[in-house]
């Protein structure tokens, strides 16, 4: 359990650093938004999207850091978190869901690429690039784990 406590402390450090970075990005996004000309609605939307996304990240990271700090300070909570994080059924569900989600996304993107070819070559080539990249990653990871396991 001590090793897990050390791991959590390292995670707290890493997440804290990331949170500071996200706060800087939010501040930069707000400053940039204030100095933006009002006649560019697309950039206005993008800036709002960025701020919203970073704020969401920040809330999730604060929530995680708070949970880890409570676990590090309390033996019972640490054990509960350890069990939750290492439960083999949860891992099985996660692995199965991730694998299925990948293949469903891959097939949907491939189908969308085919349909988009009738309307826009730009969209077609972009989606084709994404599909090829995803396929490449899938094959590479399969080869890697086939050799590792």
């Amino acid at each position, binding site marked *: 359990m001590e090793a897990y406590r050390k791991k959590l402390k390292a995670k707290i450090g890493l997440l804290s650093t990331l949170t500071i970075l996200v706060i800087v990005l939010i501040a930069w996004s707000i400053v940039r938004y204030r100095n933006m000309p009002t006649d560019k609605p697309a950039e206005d939307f993008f800036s709002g999207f960025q701020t919203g996304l970073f704020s969401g990240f920040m809330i999730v990271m604060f929530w995680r850091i708070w949970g880890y700090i409570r676990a590090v300070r309390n033996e019972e909570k640490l*054990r509960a978190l*350890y*069990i*939750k994080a*290492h*439960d*083999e*059924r*949860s891992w*099985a569900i996660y692995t199965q869901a991730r694998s299925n989600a990948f293949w469903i996304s891959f097939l949907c993107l491939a189908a969308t690429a085919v349909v988009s070819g009738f309307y826009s070559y730009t969209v077609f080539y972009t989606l084709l690039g994404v599909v090829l990249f995803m396929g490449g990653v899938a094959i590479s990871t399969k080869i890697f784990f086939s050799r590792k396991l």
Partner: protein
Amino acid sequence: MKTRIQEFRKEKKLSQEELADAVGVTRQTIISLEREKYTASLVLAYKIASYFNVTIEDVFDFSDLEGM
């Protein structure tokens, strides 16, 4: 896979939560094992059998695998 986890657990008057905590899994995992929806890994099967002080074959029924 058929198991006798519930039987052993009730014999020892243990709750699902207590057994889960003893073998280091969540209560949902014990529920799934008892309902035969999930098959335990070798490590978890060993932990459960050791906890009840019996063999793995006493807890888990491998008869379905015979002849495969």
